[in-house]
C-alpha cells in the first residue's frame, strides 16, 4: 500500500518529500533564517537584561568596562570579521564548483574560529588567574608572578573590584574604598561581569557549535558532496556563521567599549 510515487534517482541530494531541488533549497534557507530569528531572540533576553541594568547603573557600567581586556577583544573582532569573509568566499567557491578552494576556505574559517576561542580562553583565564592571586594564566599554572593589587572579576563569593578603580570611580577616598572593596562585595559591578560571562560564554558555545558545523561541511566538501547545483549546507552553515559574527559585533562595543 505504501509506495513511493516519486522517483528521484537522478538527484541523490533531493529528499523524497520535496518536489524540486529549488523547493528543497528554499525550504532549507528559509528554515535557517527562521532559526536565526530564534537565536537573536535568545540573545535578546541577555541584551534586555544588559539594557535594564546599564540604565539603572550607568556609572558602574562605565567604571567596570575598562577592566575587560579590550586589546584581546579587538583582535578577536578582527579574527571573526576575517572569518566571515572566508565563509562568504567559501559559498562563492561552492557555487563555482571549486572544491579545493572551498575546502581550504572552510579550513581557514575553522582555524579562525579556533583562534577566536583560544583568545577568549586566554581572556577568561586571566580573570580566573587574578582571582587565584596570580598575574596571568601562565603564572597561575607555573606558580609564578603574584598579582600586585588584589582583584577578582569573576562574580561570586570572591568578587573584588579593585580598590583604586573604586576610588577613581567618583573620587572615593582610599580608606572608604578599602572598606567597600571586600571580597564578595555585593555591588552591581557583579552584574556587569556576570552578564559579560553569560553573554560571551553563550556566544562561545555558539562558536563551538559553528566550528563543529563547519568541520562537518568541510568533510562533506572533501567527499565531493557538493556541486554547483547543490551546496545548500555550505550556504546555510555560512548563514549561521555570519549570525555568530553579528552577535559578537554587538557584544564587543556593549561590553568592551561602553
Amino acid at each position: 500500500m505504501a509506495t513511493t510515487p516519486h522517483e528521484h534517482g537522478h538527484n541523490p541530494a533531493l529528499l523524497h518529500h520535496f518536489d524540486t531541488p529549488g523547493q528543497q533549497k528554499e525550504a532549507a534557507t528559509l528554515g535557517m533564517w527562521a532559526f536565526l530569528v530564534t537565536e537573536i531572540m535568545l540573545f535578546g533576553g541577555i541584551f534586555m537584561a544588559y539594557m535594564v541594568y546599564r540604565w539603572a547603573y550607568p556609572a558602574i557600567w562605565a567604571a567596570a568596562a575598562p577592566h575587560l581586556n579590550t586589546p584581546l577583544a579587538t583582535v578577536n573582532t578582527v579574527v571573526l570579521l576575517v572569518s566571515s569573509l572566508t565563509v562568504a568566499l567559501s559559498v562563492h567557491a561552492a557555487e563555482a564548483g571549486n572544491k579545493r578552494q572551498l575546502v581550504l576556505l572552510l579550513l581557514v574559517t575553522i582555524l579562525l574560529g579556533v583562534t577566536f576561542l583560544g583568545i577568549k580562553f586566554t581572556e577568561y583565564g586571566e580573570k580566573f588567574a587574578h582571582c587565584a592571586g596570580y598575574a596571568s594564566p601562565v603564572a597561575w599554572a607555573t606558580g609564578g608572578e603574584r598579582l600586585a593589587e588584589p582583584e577578582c572579576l569573576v562574580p561570586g563569593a570572591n568578587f573584588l573590584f579593585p580598590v583604586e578603580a573604586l576610588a577613581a570611580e567618583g573620587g572615593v577616598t582610599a580608606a572608604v574604598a578599602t572598606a567597600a572593596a571586600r571580597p564578595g562585595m555585593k555591588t552591581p559591578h557583579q552584574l556587569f561581569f556576570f552578564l559579560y560571562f553569560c553573554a560571551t560564554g553563550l556566544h562561545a558555545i555558539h562558536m563551538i557549535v559553528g566550528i563543529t558545523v563547519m568541520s562537518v561541511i568541510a568533510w562533506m566538501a572533501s567527499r565531493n558532496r557538493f556541486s554547483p547545483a547543490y551546496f545548500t549546507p555550505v550556504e546555510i552553515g555560512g548563514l549561521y556563521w555570519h549570525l555568530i559574527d553579528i552577535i559578537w559585533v554587538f557584544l564587543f562595543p556593549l561590553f568592551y567599549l561602553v
Partner: protein
Amino acid sequence: MQGFSFFPDQASTFAGPIDLLYFVLVVLSLLFAGVLPFVVLYLVVRYHRSQQVDRTNPPASDLRLELTWTIIPLILAMIVFFWGAFLYVQMRTIPPQAIDIYVIGKQWMWHTQHSNGKRENNELHVPIGRPVRLIMTSQDVIHSFYVPAFRVKQDVLPGRYTTLWFEATQAGQYHLFCAEYCGTEHSLMGGTVTVMSLSDYQAWLSTPGQVIMPDGTIQAGTVLLNTNAIPSKPTTSSSLSDPMVLAGEKLFTSLGCVSCHVMAGGGLGPSLKNVFGFDQLLADGSMVKSDENYISESILRSTAKVVKGYPAVMPPYQGQLSNDQVNQLLAYIKSLSTRGGTTPSAVPTTATGATAAPVAEDLVAKGKSLFTKIGCVGCHMDNGAGLGPSLKGVYNSTVTLDDGTTLKADETYLHESIITSQAKVVKGYSMIMPVYKSQLKADEVAALIEYVKSLGSAGNQP
C-alpha cells in the same frame, strides 16, 4: 461570612467602586454569556440535519455583520477600560496626608511597624477615615500584601520598596493574606487587619507591645505613652518626637552619618534636609526622584547614584543594616523634609526609655484608658447606677454572688471576672458582660486590674 455570598466585606473606600465595576462587568458578561449560548442552541436545533428548513443561499461572509460585532465589543471594552483606568489611577495616587506604616514581609510572616515604633506580627491595626500608606519591603522572597476586604494587593519585593494605600471605612477584623507564593508555609503567612476608630487607634498605639529600638533589637512589653492630644487635623511636617524618627536619628548619629551629612550643609555629603520627595541631580547629569527606593539604595549601595557635586566617598551599608534599621533611617530622613508626609504619632511621645517592664503607674493609666476604650465604663458607672456594679472600693471587699455565696474580691477574682465574666456574677446584676478571654492580652488584663485596684480597696477608700 457564612454560607454563600458573592462579595467579600467592604471595608475600604475602594471596595464600593470596585464592586460596582465588577457588578457591571458581570451584567455585561451575562449579555454575552447569557444570550450567545442560547443563540447557538437555537441554531443547532433549528438547523439540525433532520430539519426541513430553508438552507438556500447561505451567506459566506458579511462585512456589516463583522463590523458590528467588532465595533460594539470594542466600544464596550473601551468604556470598561477607561472606567477601570480611572479607578486604578485613584488607587495609585497616594493622598499627601496619609499615615505611613512600614511593612516587612519575610518567610512566612508579616511585620508591621507604626511610626511610633510599635510593632506587630501578622497583624495590622489601622484607623477609620484616614488614608494609610504602607511602605513595604521583603527580607527574602517576593510576597504580596493582600486584604480582600479593602480590595488592595501589592507585591512586596526584596531589595526595594513598594507602596500601597487605602482608607478603611468599617470597623472590624479582616483577613490579611500573602498572595504571592513564597514557599512552604505560604498559606500560613497571613493574619488579621483590625480596623478601629481613629481615637481607638491612637489609644491602641500606646498600649504595651513590641517596640524596635534604634540598635535593631526588639523590646517586648514596652509602653509608649500617649500624652499628646489627638490632632484634629494632621500637621504637614512631622514631629521629631516620633519614636521611629527618634530611633532613626539615634542610628544616624551612632553610624556616623551625621559627620558627613551636616544638616547645615558644607559636609562631605549633602545635607539631608528637604531631600526626601525632591528631585536630585546626579553626578551623571540625570535627575532622580528621591523616594524610599532612592534613599535606601543610597544607603545600601551608596555609590550607585551619587548626587552631583559630592564625592562618592560613602561606604555602602549593604549587609550591615537590618530592614528595620533602614526603615528607621528612612523615617528620620523623611522627617527632615517638608515632603516627608505625616505620621499620626506626632501623637505619642516619650516614655520609650528602654523600660522593659512597665511601672505600676503606667499600668494604671493604661488600664484606665482601656477601661474607657473597651467600654467598661458604660456599665460599671461610679455612681452605681450602671448595668454593672460600681468598681469603686471593690478590691479586697467581700462581695455576694447571685448564688448567695460570698467571696473576697482579690486579684484572682477580678481577673476571672474580666476574662470569664459570667462565672461569678455579683448578686443583683444580670449576666450580660461579654467574655474578654480572647480579646484582651494578658498585659491588658493586668493593666485593668491595676486600674481597678487604684479605685480603692475595702476599708481604704481614697
